[in-house]
Structures are given as C-alpha cells and as structure tokens.
C-alpha cells in the first residue's frame, strides 16, 4: 500500500493541473505526503487531495481532459480505501473498476459512437494534423515534412478564413495502411483491457495488456498524465503475489516520462536520414 501511495503522490506532484492556483496547492500537499509518510497514510490528507483535484473540473469546465477526471477519481478512491478495514483490498477493487470503466467508455466511443474512427479516417487526419503524431507519420507512414506542412497550412486556412480546400493535396500512400494498423491495434488493446479488467475470467491478461498499452501508446501519444495515472492504477490493483507486474508498472511509468523527455523519435528520424 505504501508504494502505491508514494507513486500516486509522485504522479499528482508531476502532473498537476495547468493553472498555477490549481497546481501549487496540489503539489504542496502531494510533496508533504511524499516527505511525511504518516501524512500520506491519513485519509484526511487524501480527502484534501480529492478536493484539490476535483474543484478544477468545475472551474475549468468544459476544458478539462479525461485524465483530469481520472485523477480526481483516483484521489477519491484512495481516500475511501483508507477509511476501510482493508484499505489495500478496497483500493484494488476501485482501481480495477476505474481502469475497466475508462477503457469501456473509450472503446464505446471509438467502436460504436464515433462516425469517423473505425474506417481509419480519424488516424489519417490525426497523423497529418496533430504534431504529436508527426514523427510516427514520417517514420512509418512515408510522409515528408513538406506534406505535413502543406496539410497544416491548408487546414489552418480552411478553419480560420473559411477558404476552400486545395484539391491538389495528395495523401502519402503509406499513411492509410499505417492509420488502419493503428486503428486495429487500438481497437484490440483497448477493448481487451476493458474486458480483462471488468470480466474476472480474463484476469490473467490484465497486467500484460495494460503494461503493453502503456509501453506502446505513449511512445507517440505523449499524454503523460493519462499514462501515469493508468500505470498507478495498474499498480494499485495488483494482487499481493504479482511482484513482477508491480515492478513493470513502475518501470513503464518512468518509460512514459522518458518518451516525453527524450526526443527519441526525432533522433531516429535523423539517424535514418528521413529529416
């Protein structure tokens, strides 16, 4: 339990909200918990952390990202678990259901509700328009920087000036297969995680799937906060005897940080002469 509390506090400290008046109090309380173990084990400290992670959701409405909500749910889970007779067990249950619920709704949106995800259109556009995916588009999609710039310029003009779309834009041939591969991979792993965490019969593959998701998805989609929280919840739901899984969750958490702070994909692009 202590390891989970420490990792959770570290995550709250490292990935706090954007505005300083929301971030600083949260970092102060999280830092205090890291330095003073008794404070970290007190449900009242976590109640305070729950308040500090929750009120920005109201203040920032509707701009908060999904992981901002997950952060507040995580703090609430720890608070309530610490008031239980068996805190570790209660937190394990909460963490498992939070992961399952997150991936259930993520899969529902992607596979059922979205009109442009399943056919690969979402990833084709995202690879071209979202700078976080540009390295992937160049490395595996055969896109050139000129193509990405041309798409960006045309889309910006389309959105801001109301101009038309230049008919001359040609999608790189490798982009569609890459988008379809990403779509298939995401569909399989996200529905797999939802099923594994919500259906006890698939419990054996829970850790493998969630760690694989963390180690692959966040290599490009550098939504650090979401990755951190998922690995923390993964760690929290481990059974007593799953020591290797616990180590893997913590290692993957640091890997997610490394993905963000080391420009590895740009270095690879340079090494391959694709720049």
């Amino acid at each position, binding site marked *: 339990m202590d390891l989970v509390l420490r990792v959770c506090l570290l995550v709250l400290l490292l990935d706090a909200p954007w505005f300083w008046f929301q971030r600083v109090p949260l970092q102060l309380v999280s830092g205090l918990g890291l330095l003073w173990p008794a404070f970290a084990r007190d449900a009242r400290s976590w109640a305070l952390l729950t308040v500090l992670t929750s009120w920005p*959701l109201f203040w920032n*409405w*509707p*701009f*908060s*990202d*999904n992981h901002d*909500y*997950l952060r507040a*749910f*995580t703090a*609430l*889970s720890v608070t*309530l*678990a610490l*008031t*239980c*007779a*068996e805190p570790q*067990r*209660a*937190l394990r*249950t*909460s963490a498992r*259901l*939070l992961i*399952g*619920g*997150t*991936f259930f*709704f*993520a899969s529902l*949106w*992607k596979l059922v*509700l*979205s*009109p*442009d*995800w399943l*056919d*690969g*259109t*979402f990833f*084709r*556009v*995202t690879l*071209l328009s979202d700078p976080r995916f540009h390295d992937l588009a160049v490395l595996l999609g055969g896109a050139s920087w000129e193509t990405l710039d041309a798409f960006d310029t045309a*889309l910006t003009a*389309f*959105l*801001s000036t*109301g101009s038309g*779309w230049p*008919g001359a*834009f040609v*999608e790189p041939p490798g982009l569609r297969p890459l988008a379809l591969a990403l779509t298939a991979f995401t569909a399989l792993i996200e529905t797999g995680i939802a099923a594994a965490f919500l259906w006890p019969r698939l419990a054996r593959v829970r850790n493998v799937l969630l760690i694989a998701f963390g180690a692959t998805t966040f290599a490009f*989609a550098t*939504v650090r906060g979401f990755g951190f929280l998922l690995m923390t919840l993964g760690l929290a739901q481990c059974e007593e005897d799953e020591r290797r899984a616990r180590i893997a969750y913590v290692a993957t958490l640091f890997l997610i940080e490394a993905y963000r702070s080391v420009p590895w994909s740009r270095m690879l692009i340079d090494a391959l002469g694709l720049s």
Partner: protein
Amino acid sequence: MHRLPPRVERRALVAPLLLVTLALAQLAGSAAFRLSPWKGGGFGMFSTNDQGGLRSVRVLELSAGGERRVALPQALERLQSHVREAPQRSNLERLAAELRRGTEGLGRLRVEVWGTQFSPVDLAPERVLVARFESR
C-alpha cells in the same frame, strides 16, 4: 470464495460509479447539445475528429440588406472556446449578449458553430453545422 465485508465493497465502488455516472452524463450532453466527445469526462478523446480544435464559431449580423460577419474580439476568446466545446443554447446566447455589450448598435445576430468532417476518400474537409442560435 471469501467475500469482502459489505461496507468495504460499497466504498470501493463509489469512485467507479461516479466515473460511470459522469461518462453517461457526457454521452447525454454530446447527444443533446453536441458537447465535444473529447471533453466532459466521457473518455471520447482520440475517438473522432469532432473536437473543439476543428470547430469554428461564426457570428453574423442579419439585416434587411443581407448578413455580415461580425469579428469576435480577443477578449471573448475563452467564451468562444467554451462555445466550440459545449455549444449549448445558453452558451451561444451568452456569446451574443457579450458581443452586444462590447459593440453598440448591433442588430439581429446569428451565432453558428461549425464542425469539420473529412472525406474518407481523399481527406478533403467539409464544414458541417453543429449548432445555431438567433438573437434579437
């Protein structure tokens, strides 16, 4: 199989139940007033191109002679972003009211929120109307 004491079980379910409740509320908001699937705690991020960044807000002044586009001042940028993400009637109304407050003599206004749909064939974007409100 050993069962958890009921009290422990119930407390452990509070946060997951909140997650489900909020995600369902977000689904309802998305259906009712086109709340962006990326926002609101429904876990729809990275599921669609229908997001605030690909939506735009247009305000038109309507008169007998036709319609003219009204420029949105920098001061209303946050409200404009709010309208893009959550284009519910009250937000569109508020944007029109704030515009009137800053610009004297404005006539009938129409606030429109447009989204972007990409062709699955050649990715050519097309504007689609997300929400519209007319204020007198």
